[in-house]
Structure formats: structure tokens, C-alpha cells
């Protein structure tokens, strides 16, 4: 099982403002009544994007000029709350391939890495500057350099953080860990045998 080495993600951006954007907001729970992740992209940020009748509300994701965005920008503690992988799945299936935020909730961050979505941690003022540039010209390209932990946009370059474990996993094509976990079957059996709880 060979995975893509994710060293760089390029695309247009869209800024969804706010701190503490939780996974219930990213994908409301009622859309998790499903047994696959198919089609979840459609319901991304649903309750802040749509009225109860299904009409568009004012939201950056509803704006034509941001329709091609594949880099999502947001605030602090992005993805907090429920552990639902439906949230990063919805983000990915909507078409996003990278996220820039001030900070992330831990479970969400890990879920993103497992799906090969780089989550860049950037300073509040840098995110505001990128957001302003995107607002002025939505067509500008944002390049996320995972290897060097840098973001370039409109001729500017800023330093960000990807976290070492995530950077390694993405750039080495090891973001899905199941292959490596399976290799240790014998060691697993030894540790499991030493456990005295939940015995057969």
C-alpha cells in the first residue's frame, strides 16, 4: 500500500472566521446518520451556510468567488468538540486539501493527518494577512510547503508549524499508519498477553 507523499499543497483560499469552530458546526450531527462517508462534503458547515429551508445564507463558502478554494483558513482551536472523523471527511470531500489555523483541537488534528490533510499552524496576524489578500483577490495562489513548514501567497512568505510527527507522516507518505502498525503483529501479541484484563 503506497501512499502519496504530501510535500506541497497549492490552491486558492477561503477564510471562515472565528475561534472555537467545533466539529458540530463543521458537520451537524444529523448528517452523521450514515454508514459511509460518501456525500458528506455537501453538508460541510451546513447550518451556518443554509437556512432551515435549504436556501443560502451569507457565508464565504456560498460566494461564487471562493468556489474554487482548496485551502481553508480559520481561527483558534479549530475542530474542537466531538471526535467525529466526519468533520475532516466533509472538509476533504468538499474539496479542501489543506488547512491554516491558529491552533487545532487534538483529535481533529490527528484525524486530518490520518486522511493526509496538512494542518498548518500560523500566527493570528499572518492568517489575517492571508485572509485580507484572499479577500482582495480570491484567485491568488496559496502554497503550503509541508517539508519546509512555509506558506507563500501573493509573493509573500511566512513561517508556520506543521508539527514534526505530522510533517514526517505527510512528506514520507506514511500518514495512514495501518501498514506500519500491522508489521508489529508479534510484538503486539506479546504486550497483549501480558495484560490481565479483558481476558478471553
Amino acid at each position, binding site marked *: 500500500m503506497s501512499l502519496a507523499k504530501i510535500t506541497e499543497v497549492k490552491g486558492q483560499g477561503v477564510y471562515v472566521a472565528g475561534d472555537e469552530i467545533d466539529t458540530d458546526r463543521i458537520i451537524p450531527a444529523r448528517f452523521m446518520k450514515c454508514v459511509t462517508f460518501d456525500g458528506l462534503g455537501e453538508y460541510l458547515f451546513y447550518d451556518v451556510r443554509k437556512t432551515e429551508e435549504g436556501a443560502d445564507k451569507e457565508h464565504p463558502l456560498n460566494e461564487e468567488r471562493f468556489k474554487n478554494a482548496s485551502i481553508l483558513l480559520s481561527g483558534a482551536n479549530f475542530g474542537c468538540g466531538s471526535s467525529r472523523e466526519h468533520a475532516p471527511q466533509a472538509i476533504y470531500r468538499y474539496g479542501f486539501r489543506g488547512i491554516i489555523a491558529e491552533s487545532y483541537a487534538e*483529535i481533529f488534528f*490527528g484525524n486530518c493527518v490520518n486522511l493526509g490533510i496538512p494542518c498548518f499552524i500560523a500566527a493570528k496576524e499572518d492568517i489575517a494577512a492571508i485572509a485580507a489578500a484572499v479577500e482582495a483577490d480570491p484567485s491568488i495562489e496559496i502554497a503550503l510547503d509541508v517539508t519546509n513548514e512555509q506558506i507563500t501567497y501573493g509573493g509573500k512568505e511566512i513561517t508556520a508549524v506543521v508539527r514534526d510527527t505530522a510533517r514526517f507522516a505527510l512528506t514520507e507518505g506514511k500518514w495512514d499508519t495501518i501498514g506500519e502498525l500491522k508489521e508489529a503483529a508479534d510484538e503486539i501479541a506479546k504486550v497483549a498477553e501480558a*495484560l490481565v484484563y479483558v481476558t478471553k
Partner: protein
Amino acid sequence: MAKSLFEKVWDAHTVRSMSNGQTQLLIGTHLIHEVTSPQAFGMLRDLGLKVAYPHRTFATVDHIVPTDQRVEPFADPLADAMIQELRKNCAEFDVTFFDLPTGKQGIVHVVGPEQGITQPGSTIACGDSHTSTHGAFGAIAFGIGTTQIRDLLATQTMSMTKLKVRQVKVNGKLQPGVYAKDVALHIIRKLGVNGGTGYAYEYAGQVFDDMTMEERMTVCNMSIEGGARAGYVNPDQKTFDYLEGRPYSPKGAEWDAAIERWKSFASDPDCEYDDVVEIDGADIEPTVTWGINPGQAITISENVPTVEESPEEEKANVAEALEYMKLPAGSPIKGTKVDVCFIGSCTNGRLSDFEEAAKYVKGLKVAPGVKAIVVPGSQVVDGICKAKGLDKVFNDAGFEWREAGCSMCLAMNPDKLIGDQLSASSSNRNFKGRQGSPTGRTVLMSPVMVAAAAIKGEISDSREVFGINQLVEA
């Protein structure tokens, strides 16, 4: 070298280092439910893999089950498809399922402890962020995503970065009318909703020593609301007393050996923590949320904050929360009219939660126009409550006593807010839309505070409503 419980448990379950620098950690007990597991089983099938250690996975159904009527097929075909899928997966992969007819069904974080599956010194994971609940027993318990569920099913291990440990010490005694829920909300308010990122919280101090197991579960449950992926209390005699005689608890000679082993996992007295925070239990008041995350909390006697008086970096968040909650800034939260009252959830859906609330609502009536529901966390809790007549106490007072499930905590079943209804809720999250209406409003509080809100029809100080003595005994 002196070690914390977290380090001891982590070391005992470490398989090896991963190439990404994380640890391959063995998870001894894997809990699953219908919402986050079906895709994991799907991935397993796609990869042609089997469940490596099926006896180490336990399933229940909680999020989507209706709590008013249990006739199958469920009225909601999507919910029905989910329970059928879980049945199919458990049967095919030989996983124990506490299904509806077993009498053991309930919220996964209520079922694990009451069946004796949750044990000190173990590692536990579940595709549910409130898995931190199980830490009350001195287990290290993590919420995980669906890809990790797949990893656990296939290998019983997952890749994870070791957490730092912060000891959160709550000293002294709680005042009468102050509950574990208030302690949890107080900690989150003080340390922030992301203050625990990268940490496991070790809860300690006199207040935790004095707590019952169910109270400890309430606080550990909400660790994740403070950003901490795990939270735990060192095991003690109360832990052992709670576990004795439960279906999956060790028996006979194994029981005595288990106690000795469990004791050995407790943090060494001289171990070093990455951080220590001390809180005076006497400072904690009945606490309620006013905003759209659990850190936006105030005591019942405080006023809702104003944008102007909030710190600069908080102004935008406060403004957003005030607009959503439609609460007048600078006014008391006490007296806010409530539409719905909910006692239940993995935070506060256990026997003692209902006993305590029942004690005060007995002989009183829910205010006109208020919909009040009481939802036991499991079929076992339901049975004990009924044997004690608690269902009758609540029904007589005008509450609806329901069947076991997650209910109104999260809007995946018929229990939902309508429009911008305001709910006094003993659950754990007050996020926008959390309780099922995109404009619904949630105010988190303890079960006794929910009971007071139900009786008065407005957010109230339960100590005043029920005449709970506020003086600390000398």
C-alpha cells in the same frame, strides 16, 4: 524513578516507536457505537482484514436510539439502518454487542463502567470524545477518529503522541449545592477550552478524594471540553468498591490480585508533573454556561458578560456568543426563561444524578410550558431507578421519564430543540445547534440546577429554590 499513573499505563501498553516518532500503543479495551464505527468496518472489509482481538471490543447503541418508543424498525430509516449495520458488523466480526434486547444497552460511557469493563491501569479508546470519562477509574482513555477505530480493529494498536500530564488539584471541600458538574465547568472556565491541548489531566486533591465514582466520571467526562484528550483520577478504595461484583470485574482470587495490581498503577507520591494547577474547592459555585462553548461559563449569581468589558482578544467571540444566545449582555443569567429541561447524557445520566435531582423535585411541579425530560444513561440505570421509584417521582412532578440513550445531548435522535428554544441541560456541549435546532440555545448546568430550572421555568439558583444550606459546616 517515580512515575505518574499516566506514564505507568502508557509504558505497560507501549508496543514500539513508530517511524513518525509516535508510539504504537496497545489499547486493551475498545468500545464502539453505531455512529463512528460503520465506516471503520467498511475499511476493514475493503482491505480484506479481520478484527485481530475481537474479545477486546465491546459495542453498544446510544446516539441514534429513540428514547420515547423502542419499536423496531425505528421511524427514522437512517437510524434503523445504523443499528442494523452495527448488528451485522458485530455478528460478522464476533464482537460483543450490548444490544437493545440484552437489557445492558446504554450510553457507551455509562455501560463500560457499570459492566466492570472499565478497569484501573487499562487503556481504553472509543470513537467518541467523551471516552475520557473512563479515566475516573485510573484508566487512560482516549477519544479517537474512525480511521483509528479501523487501526484498533485490525491491530488493537494505534499511533499516538505521548501526552504531558497536568495535575489539577482541587483542594478543600465543596459547598452544599455545588456538584461535580460545577467543578468541571469551573476548571474549564479557569484553564480554557483549549488549555488542556497536549495534556492528560490528573484530577487530585481533597475534593476528588471525597467524590463518588459517578462524580469523578462527570469531571473526567468533560476533560475534552477543556482540550485535554484524557483525564483521570488515581484508583482508591472507592474505585475497587464500585467495581466489585460487576459482570466483567475479576472474581475470587483474581479479585485480590487485581486490587494489588491496580494500586500499583497509582501515581507515585513524588512523581513529577509537567504542570500543576491548584484550585480551592470552596471558591466553586453553581456554574452555568452563557455562551456557545463550555468555557463561556459564569456562576449563577454573575451577570452575562458584555463585549466592552471583555478582554480584547475575546471581544469577537463574546459578541458572536451573545448574538447567538440572545441573552442581554450585563444582565443576570438568573431569571432567564427556559423552554426545555434535560437531565441525562454521558456526563450526568447515572443513578446518583437522578437520585439527587429526585430528592428535590419530589412533590413539586414542572413550571407550565416547560418540556422536561429525564433520560437514564443505560437500561441498567433505568432498572435501578425504577426499582427505587425515581421514575414515578419525576413523572409525578411533570417530567417525562424516557428510555436509555444519548437523547437531547446531540440531536441524532428524535429528541431535539425546536427553533430558538432555550434548554437547561445536564449534558456537556453548548455548541451552536448542538441540541438539534440550528438556532437552539443550550445552557449547561448540574442535574439539580436543571431540576430547579424546570420547577421555576427559569434559570435559577438551586440552593434558593430547594433551600439547600449555603453555609459550610464548621
